[in-house]
């Protein structure tokens, strides 16, 4: 009995717990680094204004490429085969943040949505061709998109205060599209409690942009010379 148990032990340790725990920790660390650096990219994009657009986006794209090369590639090395799903909880936050940064950059540059297929294609060069390539899964992509709308809301508000109303309206349309599409998908997602929470936040973001747009067009309306004078006349009367 003793011997048997000890042999079993050795086997079990080797095959799972120790090695698996170390690996999980390394994946969590990689995920954290991806999160931090993706956030930096997002902050960089928020520096955008009418005058420095090109320059800001160029820097942001360079930073994003650095995140891919340095940190996503580390994750790729750790995750092979079935570990994609096994360790998903460990890396999901980082990947979501990365999706958020990548789609944010893309939207600011072209006004379109970066597809999952495009992101995954961009990850192929850092994958070892002999191994199963790391592909971001639909769930993490959708969770990342949900976060993207929060950033777009902040962007829209700052654009409005900068006087770029048309741009803000474009953002608004885009965010509405995403929200509408996601509404259809939420019920089908695995473990969708996270997503449900994000949907509520997303709706708030949509409403905030709409309100900002509305109050702004109201202000624009009021500041029209004809409206101004008619209001003054009313007050005088």
């Amino acid at each position: 009995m003793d011997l048997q148990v000890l042999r079993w032990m050795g086997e079990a340790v080797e095959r799972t717990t120790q090695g698996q725990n170390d690996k999980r920790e390394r994946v969590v660390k990689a995920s954290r680094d991806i999160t931090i650096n993706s956030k930096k990219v997002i902050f960089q994009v928020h520096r955008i204004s009418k005058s420095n657009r090109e320059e800001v986006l160029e820097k942001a794209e360079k930073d994003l490429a650095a995140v891919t090369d340095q940190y996503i590639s580390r994750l790729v090395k750790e995750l092979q085969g079935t570990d994609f799903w096994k360790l998903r909880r460990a890396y999901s936050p980082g990947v979501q943040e990365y999706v958020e940064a990548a789609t944010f950059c893309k939207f600011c540059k072209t006004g379109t949505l970066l597809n999952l297929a495009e992101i995954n294609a961009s990850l192929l060069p850092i994958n070892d061709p002999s191994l199963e390539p790391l592909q971001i899964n639909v769930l993490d992509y959708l969770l990342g998109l949900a976060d993207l709308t929060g950033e777009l809301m902040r962007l829209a508000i700052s654009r409005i205060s900068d006087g770029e109303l048309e741009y803000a309206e474009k953002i608004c349309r885009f965010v509405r599209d995403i929200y509408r599409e996601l509404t259809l998908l939420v019920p089908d997602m695995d473990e969708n409690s996270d997503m449900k929470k994000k949907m509520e936040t997303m709706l708030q973001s949509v409403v905030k942009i709409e309100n900002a747009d509305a109050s702004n067009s109201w202000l624009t309306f009021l500041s029209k010379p004809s409206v101004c004078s008619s209001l003054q006349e009313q007050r005088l009367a």
Partner: protein
Amino acid sequence: MADGGAPASSSSLVEKQFEDFRLHLEESGSLRERIRAVAAEMESANRIMHSSLLLVHQSRSVPEVLEKAKGQIVVLKELFNRLAEILRECPGQHYRYHGDWKSETQTMISLLAFLHWLETGNLLMHHEAEEKLGLDASEFGPDIEDYLIGVCFMSNELPRYVVNQVTTGNYDCPRKVLKFLTDLHAAFRMLNLRNDFLRKKFDGMKYDLRRVEEVYYDVKIRGLTTNDDSTEDQGTTQA
């Protein structure tokens, strides 16, 4: 006007992608439902096996109890192979759905391990569990972690078994169980567990051990243990 055209085309592209996502998610959703259906059947097979195993506490003869419980192994074997069949449709996504059959596997391992212990007095090894279920380890088998949790569940059953055996006059049982549990506990202590469910279950094992120790102590102090079996133990306690 050009401005009006651009968002329209981009939003149709957006729609296309999300349509694909929906198909993908619906597909994985229906796969999950099939897995859950199998898991539900596993659960009921577990239940039947558990209820027949419970008869050992009522001093039925062990072979008779085992015979009945073993009938369910065939059922479980069939179910696990059906599960493996379903999972073959989504290679590499084993762990995406793992949560759906995890607890059933743990319960099943605990029952199989208890049965095996009653039969042989040894611990059911992971590969033996795989063999019993007719699974190929390289492809699909019970997760090591689920196996370990199942073994912890089995240890929960032992104190009650010991007490009932003593009641029926089997005074040698506590010594055997104590030896087995002590070894098992020592083996688990060598594992470097992370702070999760398995760790919690392992922490509970020491209470099982303590209860068995108490029963053994009672039996021993009343001089109910047979002498030839306890000579070796007396040596160690006096030292």
